[in-house]
């Protein structure tokens, strides 16, 4: 599992790349792996305000929907508008072409709460027991079929 140096990481598995006052935000390789095949991405509009620790969008796999939380607060200045068309980019390149939004930060102190690559790697290790868990709401069962007769 990859955790590039130079990025900051949140406990909710978002990453942040800071370029001056702009924070580029995406979800981590761990996050996309937990989700599985990403089939839909919901992003905010340019100009919207995002609030630190509040959801700014959602990432959906075939099985489940997950909110994506803003690791920093500010104003959205750019969104990755290729994602709605090719959401699988988040699986293929979570730290590159799979970036989600760029935010002009209101308070750079927000970054203080985030983890370094090393801290995040350690955090993931601690979570490993829960690693195989997924927000799998579904009661399943499964069997049967109707088919033939009577239909």
């Amino acid at each position: 599992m990859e955790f590039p140096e130079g990025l900051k990481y949140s406990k909710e598995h978002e990453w942040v790349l800071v370029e001056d006052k702009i924070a580029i935000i995406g979800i981590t390789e761990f996050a996309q792996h937990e989700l599985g095949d990403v089939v839909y991405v919901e992003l905010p509009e340019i100009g919207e305000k995002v609030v630190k620790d509040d959801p700014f969008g959602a990432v959906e796999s075939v099985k489940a929907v997950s909110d994506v939380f803003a690791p920093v607060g500010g104003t959205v200045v750019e969104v990755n508008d290729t994602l709605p068309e090719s959401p699988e980019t988040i699986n293929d390149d979570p730290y590159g072409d799979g970036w989600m939004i760029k935010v002009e930060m209101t308070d750079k102190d927000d970054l203080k709460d985030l983890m370094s690559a090393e801290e995040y790697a350690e955090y993931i290790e601690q979570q490993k027991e829960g690693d195989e868990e997924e927000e799998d709401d579904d009661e399943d069962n499964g069997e049967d079929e109707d088919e033939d007769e009577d239909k």
Partner: protein
Amino acid sequence: MNAPATPQVRKKTPLNSVHRRLGAKMVEFAGWDMPVQYRGVIEEHLAVRGRAGLFDVSHMGEVEVRGAGAVDFCQTLTPNDLSRLKPGQAQYNLLLNDNGGTVDDIVIYPLKADHVFICVNASNTDKDFDWIEKHGAGKVKVEDTSARYVQLALQGPLAENILQRLTSPRLAELKTFYFFFAAVGGIESLVARTGYTGEDGFEIFCEAPDGEKLWDVLMQAGSEDGLQPAGLGARDTLRLERALPLYGHELDDSTTPLEAGLDWVVKFSKGSFLGRDPLLKQKEEGVRRKLVGLEMTDPGIARSHYPVFKGSARSGEVTSGTKSPTLGKAIAMAYVRAEDAAAGDSVEVEIRERRAAARIVPLPFYRRQVK
């Protein structure tokens, strides 16, 4: 992203170590530790549609009813007509409560007049066993034999080719919903041409200690045909495309088969059965809500419990939804008011505080081409 949930103690099928060896992502499902995917839900889904997939469905329960009149007892307990079955034929059926609500959907295998084998949902095994035992008291012997069996589902257009390499009865002659007992790769099994994916395929039951070997011989026999292990994730997207109901979503104790579009299972003409009177009344009066198919026309995926609106009125709620890997569209099943259920009509689904347009479409979303 939301943090993963806390792990808990789970039941394991006899193939648990096989799944872990294959690197499956394991999740809790109905109290079981089950593989949700091995290499990816979409890949496994497409493998089943195009070639074949192998599922461990040993979490599903088995209840056996024995004693003189076992079949007759099941005939009074269920709405489908067991008297229509030919020898070696199984049947999709239901357990209904006194209100006509659904205790479970089941597959019933009358093995002999005095022995009925019933496959039930994992989440309902205890409830079903109690229900059958309560009604069979003094008439038949009811046993929960779930722990005794491994159940594998070999599904997909190449399933017959693969299984034929391991067993001698001519599978081409085995019609849908028929079964036989035979050795599969030397392992005594019950082989049924049934499944939950919308594809041709087989469900194979064997004694639990033979389960791992059965998995291995099937995987080996299927290697040249591209057989892939498939998890619960693909199982769910496959059954949803084929609009097969999932207990806890499309069916529950408050849902009747007439609302769920399972009218064809209910044979009023067969005479008395548990739950008949309230269902007959509902049939005469007409259902107030119906299960429909939705195709999203706006971006977004409708998920279980999302509200459905017709104009400003709340019409109902989504029961299951996903992006269909086969069709490439967001699809869902939903209960809506009967007056809103006409195919072609437009409705809206509330997705995270936003209304998204959807169209009511006929079910199923996907139907395989019959050879």
